[in-house]
Structures are given as C-alpha cells and as structure tokens.
C-alpha cells in the first residue's frame, strides 16, 4: 500500500470520510421514511381513489388536483400516493425472498462440499445466465402479475448473486478456529450452522437484502410499464405506461404532470434504497470492513 501511495499520481489515499457517509445514510433514511409514511397513511392522504373519475381530462396542476389529472380524469397525486404500496411491498417481499433463497442455497453449497455443492453451483450458473426480464414478462403474463406473484418470481430468478456471496462467506467461516473447534468437540451440523454460521451471515444478508429490494422496485415498475401487473393495483410503472401510451403526450404539456411525477417518485425511492444500502454495506460487508478498520 505504501508503494502504491508513493508511486501513484495522487498521494491522497481514499479516506472513508465518516461525515459524508453519514449524510448519505441520513438522506436515504429520510426518503425511505417518507415512503413508509405514504404506505401507512396513503389511503387517508390521497384525496381520491386511484381510478375514480376525479375531474376533467388532462387538467393542469392546481386547485383540487395538486398534480393535475390524466387522460381519463384520474387524480395524478392520488395515484402517486397509492402507488407507493405496490413498490414497497415488492421491495420487502422480493428482497426477503431473494436473500432467503440465496441463503439456503449458499449455506448448503458452502457446508456440503462435493456433489451437492457442485450441483447447486451449476444450477446457480444456469439461472445466472438466463435473460431474466423476458422470462419475468412471460411468467408475469401467464400468472397475472399480482404483487405477491411477482415477488415470488423475482425471488426465484435473482437468488444466485446472494447465494454466491453467502456461499463464499460460509466457506471462509468454515476454516475459522471457533468453527473448527466446535466440530472438533463433536458438534452436529445443525448446531454448528445455528450457533456459528447463521449468526455471522445475518449481517451480510441484510447487506444483500437492500440492493435486492432496490432491484425489485425497479423490476416491478418496469414490468408494470411493459403491461405485466395487476390492473386493480395502482403502480408508478402503470402510470408511466399510461402516459407513454398517450400519443399526444408531448404535443400537449401533459407530460409535465403525468409522466414526470411517477418517474421521479420511482427514482427517488431507488436512490433512497441505494443510499441506505451503500451505508449498510460499508458497515456490514466483511469484504469492505477488512480494510477500513
């Protein structure tokens, strides 16, 4: 490291300035807090129901409609508030499902070397190369694309990254002294996993959960945008879809209050999750902790 510092054009090392990191985490938490509040109080905050005929077609923002109305006279602000539900539910369900599946495969593959491990890693490789979005579209179109259904399918397709990371952590844990001592004392597989492996994986799983949740938000909205989704469930992706499908969107100025708000809501949520995730990864990932402590 000293050689690098002396040689490199800039001698400035990259200090993990704690101040910057904390602000990112604070901003991310505030954003997420706002969305959770929308989820909790959304039905009371929203002045109209999502598909209620609330006003005339394409009313500009102002008056009774804070963000105007769409082509069918639905209130955009209400749709925006109520759409938070689908995104947040998918984030939690699909994020958790991805990590749980990844943990099961990762722990099994890490703990049982030989054929179970190689079979599991083959399957992991296989799932990893399948183009996921077209498959999600196919399955989503066949099953109807409810929030729960999509979460299951997303979990079933995106577990390999978590599985690989958790497996390598299990492999590294196996060689640690305390685990070796436990197996030397005759501890059973289940006891060792429960006492020594799973607690160590918990933090890493949280660090894996957050990006998985962010990815699921983007996917759910993207699928709704392409037409896979429950038509009765208001979602930002469906709003973007409706707006883009309106042929005169850019001839009128309706895009300003119809297309921009759902895109911004979505980007803000994903950025919030990413900020929290980056902060959490700094704290939780053993890979990064190693050269920061």
């Amino acid at each position, binding site marked *: *490291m000293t*050689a*690098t510092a002396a*040689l*490199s*054009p*800039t001698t*400035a*090392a*990259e200090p*993990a300035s704690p101040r910057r990191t904390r602000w990112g985490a604070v901003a991310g938490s505030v954003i997420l807090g706002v969305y959770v509040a929308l989820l909790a109080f959304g039905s009371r905050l929203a002045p109209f129901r999502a598909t209620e005929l609330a006003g005339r077609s394409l009313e500009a923002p102002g008056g009774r409609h804070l963000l105007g109305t769409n082509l069918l006279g639905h209130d955009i602000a209400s749709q925006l508030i109520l759409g938070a539900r689908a995104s947040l539910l998918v984030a939690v369900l699909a994020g958790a499902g991805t990590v749980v599946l990844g943990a099961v495969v990762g722990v099994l593959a890490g703990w049982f070397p030989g054929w179970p491990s190689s079979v599991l890693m*083959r399957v992991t*490789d*296989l799932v*990893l*190369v*399948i*183009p*996921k*979005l*077209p*498959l999600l*579209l*196919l*399955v*989503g*179109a*066949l099953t109807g694309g409810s929030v729960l259904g999509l979460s299951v399918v997303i979990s079933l397709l995106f577990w390999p*990254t978590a599985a690989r990371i958790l497996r390598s952590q299990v492999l590294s844990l196996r060689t640690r002294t305390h685990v070796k001592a436990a197996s030397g004392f005759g501890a059973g597989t289940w006891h060792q996993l429960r006492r020594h492996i799973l607690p160590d994986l918990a933090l890493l799983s949280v660090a894996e959960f957050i*990006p998985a949740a*962010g*990815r699921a938000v*983007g*996917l759910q*909205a*993207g699928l709704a*945008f*392409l*037409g*896979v989704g429950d038509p009765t469930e208001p979602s930002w992706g469906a709003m*973007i879809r409706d707006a*883009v499908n309106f042929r005169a969107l*850019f001839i009128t100025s309706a*895009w300003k209050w119809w*297309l*921009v708000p759902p*895109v911004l809501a*979505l*980007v803000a949520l*994903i*950025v919030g999750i*990413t900020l929290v995730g*980056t902060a959490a*990864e*700094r704290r939780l990932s053993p*890979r*990064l902790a*190693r*050269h*920061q402590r």
Partner: protein
Amino acid sequence: MQAERVQFANGPPHPGRVVAELSGGDAGRRPVRWRPLKTIALYAVTLWAVVTLVFLLPRLLPGDPLRQLDDPGSGSFVYDEAARDRVAAYYGLDRPLAAQYGSYLADLSRGEFGWSISQNTPVSSLVRSRLPWTLLLTGSALALSSALSFFAGVTAAWHRGRWADRTLIVVLAASRAIPEYAIASALLIMFAVTFPLFPQAGAQTPFASYPSPLAAVGDVLLHLVLPLAALTLGLAANKFLIVRNTVIATLGEDYMVLARAKGLPRRLLKYRHSGRNAMLPFITALGVQAGFAVGGSLFVETIFNYPGMGTLVERAVTGRDYPLLQGCFILLAFVVLLANLAVELAYGKLDPRVVER
C-alpha cells in the same frame, strides 16, 4: 437497475487481495483448465433447460391458456375460428405430454415458434423483422459503453481521489441505480421534447425517401442516438468500476515501477501496462451484461417506440399473446446464451494463465 454486483463495487480494493484473486489465490501460478467442449455442453444444457421451461410453464401453471381465447365473453376471444384452431394445434393439449414435447422440439428445430394470436402471423416472421433492430441497439450499446467505461475507468484510476474520479463515480453509480426507462424518459424529455434535437420515436423517418444510401444510414443513426445513450449509461457503470479498481490495484506493482523508471510515455503506462490487466474481469462483465443489455433494450425500445423486440414483446404482453411471448423469450435467451458462450471461449484464448487441456 438489475445491477450486477461487482467483486469490489464500492470503495478501494486492497491491491494485494485483488492480485491474489486474479492469479488464482494462494495456488499461485497454477494453470486454470480451459475445456471448450465442456463449456459448449454446459451452454447446450442451459438452452435445453430454457426451452423445456417454456414448454412446461403454461402447462404447469394453474388455468387453461385457451379458455379465454375460446370464450366469446372474454376480452381476448379470438374471432377467427381458423386462428383458434391453429393456436389449439400449437399447444396440442389433447395429446399426451411427451408427444406434445416431441412435436414442440421438432417445430423449434425447424425454426417454427408457433402462431401469433394477436397478429395472426407466424411468430418467426414477426421476429425476423424485429431482431436486427434490437441487435443493432444492444450491440452498439455494449460496444460504446465498453469503450467509454474503459477510458473513463483508466482515467479515474489514474486521478483517483480527485474531482474527476469522484464525479465519474457519483454520476455512473447513479446511472446504474436508475432504471433504463427512467433514463430513457429523461433523455426523451430533454433532447427530443424540450430541445428537439433528435426524433422522438421510431428507427427511421416514416415514409421518407432518401436521396442516397448514406442519407438513409444517417437517418437511422439519428434515430439511434437517444435509445443508445439511455442503454449505454445503464451499462457503463459496472465496467467502469471494474476497470478503475483493477487499474488502481496495478499501480503499486513492480512492473509499473520499472516501466515508469524506464521513462515510458504516460499513454503506454496507462493503457498498455495498467489498463490491460482490466481486460479479463472486463470481458467477464461483458458476458453478464449481454443479458442486461437485452433486458434494458426492451424498456428503452418501448419508450422510444423503436421497432425491435422490445415493442414486439410489449405488444405481446398487452395482447396476452403467449406464443409470441414464448418465441421472443426463446430467441432472446438464445442470443444471450450465445454471447455468453462466445465470451467464455474468448476468455480461454485471452488469459495466458488458462491452459487448454
């Protein structure tokens, strides 16, 4: 979006660790085996799994895929009786499963993907006119993002910690987190609506007649700019971080000290001695990205109404046109698997540590 995780995505890598990883860990210079036949066999198995999955999905999931098409009360009722029969023949649900599977595989091997319900045309002919546009978009996005991220990555590593490095990291990390359709709508609003520099939709000007072939190419390129930019931004971040971190890891190597002491020009130091080390992880990422590029192009094409597979898939979803959707998926999966296979085979040729057995 769909962000693939890099080995050292955030924060500085530890040089010794990265070098150890690249040279095969504690095993030192132990040659890695390269077995092209085994690789090809594995991809063939994957393709078979994909094809079988497509066969099984509609048959395993609850519900009868044809009921809606046969029910005059439903929205997706198919009025043309001949078309309905063709769809029923495609699925062949009255025959035993093994026989259905056999004729499905036989059809696929002849390049027949079935009959599109919504457009009343063979799926293969629909796909044939769309696939080139998607290949143009994804191929050029992969190439452009590779070139950009390589130069940006080496430059950022060389100036690490300074403003250029920090700006690139923030901008590219943001572009990785934001979904392609959001980037695409932002670009559309900025450069086609607010400042109408580029066309809003399509791949060519409709009903245009060109004075020369060159003008036609120019028109296609003009329509390509915004979709390409949206897709490129999403693909660049990952490779940028890989290049940056690998190059930073090489800065302290002995051969770099020697090259510098010899007084080699900076360009050679940057790209020949240092940047070259990033090629292998870079190419691995490229293979993984083939899938992401195809997925991203589905979104980008829909925003810009680009006449590729994306808009076809979107129409298939809207019309609940399963044969078309299945055909599109099999074809896209085939393209992605082929790209991955090519990368893995190239990997064996590129890395001198990989030995053919």
